[in-house]
């Protein structure tokens, strides 16, 4: 694969900071082209990496269906040509249905509860423990080496954030947040082949590590057995 071409879904939400982070990665030669703002199906042509930003998950799902992007995203991801990174609302959409709105895309074998910490007055920032495995390229996550470095700190901004309430066996936890002494740290960033999902907002800090890690791993075909039915167009 040549250099990746990355974009950000720009229907609703915090797209511009993601575009700014990707523009920095283009400036340093990591990306083949300036980042693309994705609003229509034709914007996906030639794209290898797409970020689904934070925003309102019900609104973003509504607009994905309205502009007929849902099936296209899912098909490209399943064909192994489009890697997806969801932050906050984007992560909610990548996960599995839990009976609440909006209908999820069901691509990631994990379930996220919306607004799991409460309302905006319960939003917060916290120091996270981040462990990004060294990229080998093309490999399945489980074959990837255990991390090559000690966990490092990452500043996490959580806005009406969701929480992982279930994580499938094939999904790897890359970052955690310490909850209380004596309790195990909770997962806040997870990866599966061709997928990355986080409950916080790495685009709001100037730290490029997570974005760089995402775009430097080529898209992958999800393993058989992880194919869940996609949500129908009606919510």
């Amino acid at each position, binding site marked *: 694969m040549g250099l990746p071409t990355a974009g950000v879904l*720009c*229907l*609703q*939400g*915090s*797209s*511009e*900071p993601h*575009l*700014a982070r990707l*523009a920095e990665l*283009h*400036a340093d030669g990591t990306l083949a082209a*300036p*980042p693309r*703002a994705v*609003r*229509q199906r034709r914007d996906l042509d030639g794209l290898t990496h797409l970020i689904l930003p*934070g*925003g*309102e998950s*019900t*609104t973003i799902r*509504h*607009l994905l269906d*309205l*502009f007929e992007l849902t099936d296209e995203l899912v098909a490209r991801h399943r064909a192994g040509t489009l890697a997806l990174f969801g932050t*906050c*609302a984007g992560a909610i959409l990548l996960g599995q249905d839990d009976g*609440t*709105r909006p209908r999820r895309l069901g691509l990631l074998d994990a379930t996220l509860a*919306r*607004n799991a910490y*409460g*309302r*905006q*007055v319960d*939003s*917060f*920032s916290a120091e996270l423990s981040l462990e990004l495995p060294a990229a080998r390229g093309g490999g399945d996550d489980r074959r990837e080496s255990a991390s090559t470095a000690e966990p490092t700190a990452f500043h996490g*901004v*959580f*806005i*009406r954030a969701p929480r992982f309430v279930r994580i499938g066996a094939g999904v790897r936890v890359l970052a955690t947040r310490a909850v209380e002494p004596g309790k195990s740290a909770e997962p806040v960033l997870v990866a599966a082949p061709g997928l990355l999902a986080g409950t916080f*907002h790495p*685009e*709001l800090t*100037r730290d490029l590590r997570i974005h760089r890690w995402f775009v430097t791993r080529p898209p992958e075909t999800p393993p058989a057995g992880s194919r869940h039915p996609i949500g129908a167009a009606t919510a």
Partner: protein
Amino acid sequence: MQRTDPPKNGHDAPLPHGLDEVKIGLARMLKGGVIMDVTTVEQAKIAEDAGACAVMALERVPSDIRKEGGVARMAAIEVIARIQEAVTIPVMAKARIGHFIEARVLETLGVDFIDESEVLTPADPENHIEKRAFKVPFVCGATCLDEALRRVGEGAAMLRTKGEAGTGNIIEAVRHLRLIQKQIRELSVTPSEERMSRAKELRAPYHLVEYVAQHGKLPVPNFAAGGVATPADAALVMALGAEAVFVGSGIFGSTSPQKTAAAIVKATAQWNDPAVIAQACRETGGAMKGLTMESIPEAERLAKRGW
């Protein structure tokens, strides 16, 4: 270094002193969306189904406040609480200018954003609320750059235009958007030794004048509010640099609120695609009749409230 479209507001620069990333973060999550005024649970559900990114819980929409007159206050607690129960998207509510106790009550209720709004009757003739002291973020109206920076100086995490509410007339919102951008452009070519003097003329906090001069943008998102009645209005304010749209009387004052709400959401998301806007216009219900500015006496103009 090659530049793509530079982000408009504040993402690339560290926040100026006194601003809070968690509060401004929610303002950023609402970008590209439509925030709808609602007065009942049914309306809130219609708004959420139509794709609203948030609702503003109110007792009366601005056009009714304008018609009925009287003192307009914070909405009844029951109304706000029922709407909070009914939807999963953020719920905002309005407090009167300077009425920090109404704001404390709204914060206690757990509303996600407080609009310190000129649509309600002001409570303090001189002072706005000291917003930094709150955990809940505030949005405030601004007609020009100096008013915007005074509100940010008090701790506002989001700005919006003070388009004349309840009129269905977009002219004032357009005036405010254009003026603020013109003033930002002027400031961004003002040499550093002239900026203190400029801050004095503007009557705006110096550190925020410096921020705008250095970065060519406001430190918090600026949304459009007041007078948006059609999908084309929404696309117009987005094209003029608004980062999201508040719609008040324009939805539940129209002949078919469901259709109008969905059409405005559609046009806001794809504001730069005339084909999508045309389709949205076709799908909309009849717009509210509206008021011309000439028909509103100076004393009744809401944008004059606050400073």
